[in-house]
């Protein structure tokens, strides 16, 4: 299902949050449309389970709504704060939970009939998801934020509570491990053809 993106990019997340706190009835919808896809992607890749990721997103957004009246403009980016909350919620769940079920990892997306190329592209995405789940949690966190969510290294450092150098190290090690895990699957996943 395609969702309309928030087209009004000129209004910052912070401003929308203040508007929400002041009772604006539209601000919550715009924030939800803007922020929930980002944190859902992050949570699903951290947890490898869509249902759990959705619960985390709901909980994180609930905390955002509650903190809105106390939000101080200029102190932190809303996305940084939210990613950090999601990171903590995911860590809590990963500590409680279970061995990773790779079958569950391989199906984070809705099934949509499509051309072969589309299926191959999805297969590659799923292969990456599965490989990500094999990484240590901190490496996975850094790689997902940097290379899938497009977050800058300084912002990742804030989210993870480490230095920028540590983020670079985690990302580099994570990418090396991913390359090893995916090596040899290029032909199988159709890159030779494309």
């Amino acid at each position, binding site marked *: *299902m*395609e*969702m309309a993106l928030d087209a009004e990019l000129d209004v910052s997340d912070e401003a929308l949050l203040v508007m*929400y706190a002041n*009772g604006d*009835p539209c601000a*919550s*919808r715009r*924030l*939800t*449309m803007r922020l*929930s*896809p980002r944190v*859902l*992607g992050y949570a*699903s890749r951290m947890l490898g389970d*869509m249902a759990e*990721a*959705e619960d985390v*997103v*709901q909980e994180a*957004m*609930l905390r955002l*709504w*509650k903190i*809105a*009246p*106390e939000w101080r403009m200029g102190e932190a980016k809303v996305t940084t704060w939210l990613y950090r909350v999601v990171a903590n919620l995911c860590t809590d769940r990963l500590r409680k939970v279970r061995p990773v079920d790779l079958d569950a990892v391989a199906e*984070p*997306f809705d099934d949509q009939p499509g051309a072969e190329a589309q299926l191959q*592209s*999805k297969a*590659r*995405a*799923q*292969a*990456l*998801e599965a490989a990500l789940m094999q990484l240590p949690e901190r490496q996975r966190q850094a790689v997902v934020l940097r*290379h*899938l969510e497009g977050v800058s290294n300084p912002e990742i450092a804030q989210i993870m509570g480490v230095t920028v150098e540590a983020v670079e190290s985690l990302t580099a090690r994570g*990418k090396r491990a*991913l*390359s090893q895990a*995916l*090596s040899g699957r*290029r032909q199988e996943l159709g*890159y030779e053809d494309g």
Partner: protein
Amino acid sequence: MTEDETELALFFADAQKHAPIPDAKLVARVLSDANTVQGQPQPESALPKPGFWAPLRHIADLLGGWGVVAGLSAAAVAGVWIGYTGSAGLGAVTADFLTLGAEYELDDMTPSIDLLLAEGS
């Protein structure tokens, strides 16, 4: 970029293309929470409590910040200090002046008739 990195970049691109999208149920759950929280009266703990220094901070802001307040305070203290310690010396002068002043009358300030007559002769 090495071959490994190039290959990995392709995997990342595909994963981004297939990023999960919140479905209508999740959006409804999130918005329901938002409406519930927004409808609640703000708890007292969430209201910013004016601190002990809040009134002073307000005054300091009006004056131009704590730097200005520090300067004004220093000037005020110096004034009080000068007032107490310097008043002894000045007191002697003013006492003399007042004492001397008490010995003069109004006619002491006007020239005598003898002087005026002497000028006309």
